[in-house]
């Protein structure tokens, strides 16, 4: 079975480490916050200028001046700080964020990522995604392995305009966890009940399959 969105978030959360500063993109990455292991302390950065994002506000306590990068009302946790957009992107560009999780339309074997623009469709903008992929050392891309029509999103070369070049090393799809190295995807883990053959058939870019590909475990 392909992973659910929640399982994808759960799997990504295992990459967290105590004391990490983490930026989570919109969509599946946002769900990762729900699965931070107990006893582990991480600070979530929101690029509109908040480090130490807390839970959503209680009913009736939302504050228009307190939002996250998805424009949702949020709270600040104890230990949080709030600053300007320039300061926020100094943290991001300067490599101070320990882990960035974001979605994509396509990734390729060179570590290129396309996530913001589909030619012919309306272009709404890249927001902070280009800064995030250029600045972070440690990025995990979350996406479905193939489109609804079965077209692979893990390619030899991205077909869409790029968000960043040569910056992606790790991808979690609904079928597999892969790393990118030396011009190839390396299959590291597969979703429970998903065969290596299915992953091979849905990966258009060069894929290295080790002898043993463990199945992800979920409680």
């Amino acid at each position, binding site marked *: 079975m392909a992973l659910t969105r929640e399982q994808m978030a759960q799997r990504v959360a295992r990459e967290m480490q105590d004391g990490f500063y983490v930026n989570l993109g919109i969509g599946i990455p946002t769900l990762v916050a729900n699965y931070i292991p107990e006893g582990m302390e991480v600070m979530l950065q929101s690029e509109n200028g908040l480090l130490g994002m807390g839970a959503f506000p209680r009913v009736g306590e*939302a504050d228009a001046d307190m939002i996250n990068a998805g424009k949702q009302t949020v709270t600040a946790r104890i230990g949080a700080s709030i600053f300007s*957009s320039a300061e926020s992107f100094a943290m991001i560009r300067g490599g101070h964020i320990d882990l960035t999780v974001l979605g994509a339309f396509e990734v390729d074997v060179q570590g290129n990522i396309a996530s913001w623009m589909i030619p012919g469709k309306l272009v709404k903008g890249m927001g902070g995604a280009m800064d995030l992929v*250029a600045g972070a050392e440690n990025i995990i891309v979350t996406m479905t392995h193939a489109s609804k029509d079965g077209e692979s999103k893990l390619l030899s070369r991205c077909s869409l305009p790029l968000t960043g070049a040569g910056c992606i090393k790790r991808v979690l799809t609904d079928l597999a966890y892969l790393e990118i190295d030396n011009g190839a995807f390396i299959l590291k883990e597969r979703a429970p009940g998903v065969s290596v053959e299915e992953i091979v058939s849905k990966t258009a870019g060069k894929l290295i399959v080790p002898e043993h590909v463990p199945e992800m475990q979920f409680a």
Partner: protein
Amino acid sequence: MAGFDKRVASYEEALAGLKDGMTVISGGFGLCGIPENLINEIKRQGIRDLTVVSNNCGVDGFGLGVLLQDRQISKVIASYVGENALFEKQLLSGEIEVELTPQGTLAEKMRAGGAGIPAFFTATGVGTPVADGKETREFKGRTYLMEESITGDFAIVKGWKADHFGNVIYRHTAQNFNPLAATAGRITVVEVEEIVEPGELDPTQIHTPGIYVDRIICGTFEKRIEQLTERN
């Protein structure tokens, strides 16, 4: 106005000198921390052919979106413009030009503009359409893009509290682009929720020092929430 008293009595006075064809830099992220009354005054005055520099362009009927109704904006420099049906329509019909700019680059363009730095190098956008036509240069083995800074004829800013000297503090994440915009306007106008007595603001807590600010006005704000999200 006398000495360092930067208070003005009306929104009309706050935007005196704003003319057709000018560049206006606006603070705000989504609808958070936007100078909503100054935007409404631009609409009321019917000033046209504006270049607007802002992270977003409001929504239909609120924020910078109100300037789209009478086609007062001819160009937008922004990182994300997706919340606005009228904007999409004008973009597709070619009535409005948009220059999409990565959010961090946009923030730095304003910061640099206000700080007298004409251009800077960033890795953001290298190898993407953002790099088209721009100079690149290698530093320590990595390629960087040259981005030019931005200044505006006017900057419009939303603060929380100010004193008459023009010292401003922002509230929570309504800070966002506001302090950057404040530095980058030839004329910087700040509207706030409260103008406090001199000496009331702690000098160590000032976000925008008064030197950047030309005019201060106190307003009332709707502060619309774009995505109300609560926990049960």
